[in-house]
């Protein structure tokens, strides 16, 4: 039984020896290379795009502009208040952000393609750019939205006005979160090869190959079976690669004009920072009313998400605003809630899915108002959370946005996190004493910050209804095939960008059927192999694809044992499979092997009992219908260097309810990695545009991701309350990102009384705050 154990990952050997197969490694012959000419102006009419000089360059084979590719992505949603807009494959008539692709050069190698891209001569007629979602609109980004608002929705429950009037205290916070880049270490990459005018193979570092096939088939007016999408090894995704980009569409359209020749585009990091999807550029105005005892009575929220220049395909501009409004209240009981969310288009790169989608920002906001409420009421930050957390007895808990929480294990996570706090031999109470000692006797101040959150994972068809897109993501398919010699092949719709699904699914199938882990091969990421999968997003794969693998393995096991029962004249109910051997109840000796049975199923059909179909294979779809909420809590202990404003993390504890753990090492890796991204977003990472729409942080010298020098040791804890799905698992991919902005901001306030209203929490921001208090440098 390998489920629940740490095993050597199947991925590791090839990745550690340089034998990984990434899209950028692909060499086909003949192959030509693509470079894009990108707008250097944030908002302008395109007067002329002159390609003649580029075309004259030796080695350049073709140059395309928007006029040559009459295709556009149009992300759809049936939500009232949503304005549909087009995102052209290459800009047509107008550019809307710095970095938008407006021409593409095809050449014999990437160097020549980039030379050519520089020679495309563009005449811009500038329009007034706007990069701030709360700024005054002079020239709208899209004609169909004169106020730049592409989505607007109100979430409402109860009577907020009355509840606020009746509150003992009302606190208000105005909060701004920082624009992030997902920044997987492998940038985007696409190779397209048309066999003829109607048959296309696309290699893409995508998280969603089946969706890409579906979307390309629609765009290119082809049957889906004519398109094969392959996602080989993919170097991180984090949501950024769950999008179909205009560049992908352009490459496929251009390659169609030259069947038999592969077109390859490998994005560089500067392009990635300018034109891959961004996230988390939000403003929140929050009013919260509390009773004397700290009970949260009402929340009024006004949220503005800067969604960038286009509606990201296929998720729409709703992805962040709807998530923000739908899950703002997190794990806290609340009846009276009113949240206005709006998604405002600006002359910046489109915002899209990024690990945690909106909730690192909403958890920051929610925890900030709890901390403010605690201070106003004179109760502790820990107690105000204890007072309001959804408890197991409340389950199923209907949140004010009508989502149904199936967890309730928040207090247990929180108390366990407090129990695990430790620094230099001091526990939580010891650190509180040390904090007071330093207040009294001097020394750098210590602060402790909290965050408790819920992560909606593994969304089934009902839980993913909110955005009202033309498709509903709820299920995954998995085929489990027992081969003629008894080994097992799994064909799954999952994709992996580092999450180790090749390993985890093999564990599920090996453990379920009763064969060795090494006897199971998992294949994924190729639409010609697996039947269907929505892919990697929303912490869904262990829950949904794991469930499909389990049910498919159970079905094929049943078939194998039924055949074995006939062949060995036993009762199928008495048979089990262990390590490839067929065991009969009451006997320590195997009566046969899976290999013997499989051989009959494929190669000796003459021995098949009447009515048995040859072969041993099963395909099952699984849809959890609802989702699995995963509870999480984080506590951070920091020290602030008064003379510099520098913040040092002394301890960071994260406790999550992972449900049943399939592989402890992989689960810890997911939590640790998401914590590091959360810390990066809280302290360092910030995409900054100037007022003209130029990205000032367009290299990794300017966009700072944490390294091993900035990342502290983590203290991780786990709860394992099984979820209501076949494997009992809850998703763990994103929760870690939700806490750090909230905990670190809370800890700064706890340490020095400085309310952090704007992220990231830089030393300069702390130092300025201390200076205003008159306390810096002392």
């Amino acid at each position, binding site marked *: 039984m390998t489920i629940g154990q740490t095993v050597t990952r199947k991925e590791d050997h090839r990745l*550690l020896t340089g034998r990984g197969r990434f899209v950028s490694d692909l*060499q086909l012959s003949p192959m030509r290379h693509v470079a894009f000419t990108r707008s250097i102006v944030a908002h302008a009419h395109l007067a002329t795009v002159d390609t003649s000089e580029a075309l004259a360059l030796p080695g350049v084979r073709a140059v395309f502009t928007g006029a040559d590719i009459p295709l556009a992505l149009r992300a759809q949603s049936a939500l009232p208040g949503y304005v549909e807009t087009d995102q052209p494959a290459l800009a047509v008539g107008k550019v809307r952000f710095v970095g938008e692709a407006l021409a593409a050069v095809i050449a014999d190698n990437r160097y020549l393609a980039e030379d050519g891209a520089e020679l495309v001569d563009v005449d811009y007629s500038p329009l007034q750019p706007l990069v701030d979602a709360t700024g005054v609109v002079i020239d709208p980004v899209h004609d169909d939205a004169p106020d730049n608002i592409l989505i607007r929705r109100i979430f409402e429950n109860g009577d907020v006005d009355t509840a606020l009037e009746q509150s003992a205290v009302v606190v208000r916070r105005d909060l701004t979160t920082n624009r992030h880049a997902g920044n997987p270490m492998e940038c985007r990459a696409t190779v397209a090869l048309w066999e003829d005018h109607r048959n296309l193979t696309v290699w893409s570092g995508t998280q969603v190959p089946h969706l890409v096939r579906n979307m390309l088939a629609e765009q290119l007016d082809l049957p889906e079976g004519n398109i094969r999408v392959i996602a080989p090894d993919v*170097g991180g995704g984090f949501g950024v690669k769950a999008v179909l980009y205009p560049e992908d569409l352009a490459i496929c359209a251009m390659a169609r004009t030259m069947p038999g020749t592969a077109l390859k585009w490998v994005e560089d990091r500067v392009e990635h920072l300018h034109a891959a999807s961004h996230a988390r550029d939000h403003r929140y105005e929050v009013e919260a009313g509390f009773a004397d005892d700290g009970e949260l009575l009402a929340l009024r929220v006004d949220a503005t998400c800067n969604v960038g220049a286009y509606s990201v395909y296929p998720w729409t501009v709703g992805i962040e605003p709807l998530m923000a409004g739908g899950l703002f209240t997190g794990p806290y009981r609340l009846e009276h809630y009113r949240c206005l969310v709006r998604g405002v288009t600006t002359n910046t790169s489109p915002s899209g899915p990024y690990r945690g989608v909106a909730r690192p920002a909403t958890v920051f906001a929610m925890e900030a108002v709890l901390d403010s409420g605690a201070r106003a009421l004179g109760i502790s930050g820990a107690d105000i959370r204890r007072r309001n957390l959804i408890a197991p007895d409340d389950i199923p808990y209907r949140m004010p946005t009508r989502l149904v929480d199936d967890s309730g294990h928040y207090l247990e996570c929180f108390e366990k996190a407090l129990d695990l706090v430790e620094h230099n031999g001091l526990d939580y109470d010891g650190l509180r004493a040390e904090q007071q000692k330093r207040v009294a006797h001097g020394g750098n101040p210590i602060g402790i910050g909290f965050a408790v959150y819920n992560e909606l994972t593994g969304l089934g068809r009902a839980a993913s209804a909110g955005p009202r897109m033309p498709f509903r993501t709820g299920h995954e398919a998995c085929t489990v095939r027992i081969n003629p010699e008894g080994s097992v092949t799994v064909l799954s719709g999952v994709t992996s960008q580092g999450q180790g699904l090749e390993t985890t699914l093999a564990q599920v199938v090996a453990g379920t059927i009763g064969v060795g882990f090494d006897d199971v091969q998992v294949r994924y990421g190729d639409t010609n192999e697996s039947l269907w999968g929505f892919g990697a997003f929303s912490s869904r794969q262990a829950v949904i694809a794991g469930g499909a693998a389990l049910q498919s393995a159970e079905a094929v096991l049943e078939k194998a044992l039924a055949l074995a029962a006939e062949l060995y004249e036993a009762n199928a109910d008495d048979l089990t499979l262990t390590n490839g051997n067929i065991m009969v109840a009451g006997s320590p000796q195997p009566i046969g092997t899976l290999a013997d049975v499989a051989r009959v199923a494929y190669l000796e059909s003459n021995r098949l009992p009447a009515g048995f179909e040859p072969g041993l294979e099963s395909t099952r779809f699984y849809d959890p219908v609802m989702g699995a909420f995963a509870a999480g809590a984080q506590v951070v202990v920091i020290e602030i260097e008064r003379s510099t404003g520098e913040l040092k993390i002394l301890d960071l504890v994260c406790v999550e309810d992972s449900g049943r753990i399939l592989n402890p090492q992989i689960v810890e890796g997911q939590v640790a990695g998401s914590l590091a991204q959360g810390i990066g977003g809280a302290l360092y990472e910030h995409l900054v545009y100037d007022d003209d729409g130029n990205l000032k942080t367009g290299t990794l010298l300017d966009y700072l991701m944490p390294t091993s020098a900035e990342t502290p040791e983590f203290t991780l804890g786990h709860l394992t309350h099984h979820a209501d799905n076949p494997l009992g698992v809850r998703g763990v991919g994103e929760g870690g990102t939700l806490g750090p902005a909230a905990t670190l901001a809370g800890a700064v306030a706890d340490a020095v009384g400085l309310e952090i209203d704007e992220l990231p929490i830089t030393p300069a921001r702390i130092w300025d705050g201390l200076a205003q208090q008159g306390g810096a440098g002392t």
Partner: protein
Amino acid sequence: MRVEFTVNGSAESVEVEPRVTLADALREELGLTGTHLGCEHGVCGACTVLVDEQPVRSCLMLAVQARNASLQTIEGLERENGSLHPLQQAFSDCHGLQCGFCTPGMVMTAVHLLATNPDPTRDEIRAEMSANICRCTGYNSIVDSVEQAATARGALARDD
């Protein structure tokens, strides 16, 4: 221009334009695609290879600058009998990789660290490995990996 160097002990000769980077020469001319390009401006470290035993960003070095040098890449670490280098083994044991894209550069930086400092402290590991960015692991498992490899190598040295 014709450039000759040795890669993982084998003599190689490539014909490249002067502007071709060492990374592109390794990947495109020699098919050594284990060396990855993460930023192409010298920050992320994914393309790290050893040039005459020194770690180098192969995205910033031109192939012609490596003339007559001895290069080591990720492809050269595995033993002839197919067993993994102690660092490769440790990265697997400690889950020091997830997507594996930064991993070749990470491992080559660690090779240099252990060659110059066979018994580093965790803080020293953190300092040296901060030359490379990983977006997946949160780094602690990478520090664990380098620490384990150092211990394993120390044990091997004592056995000798």
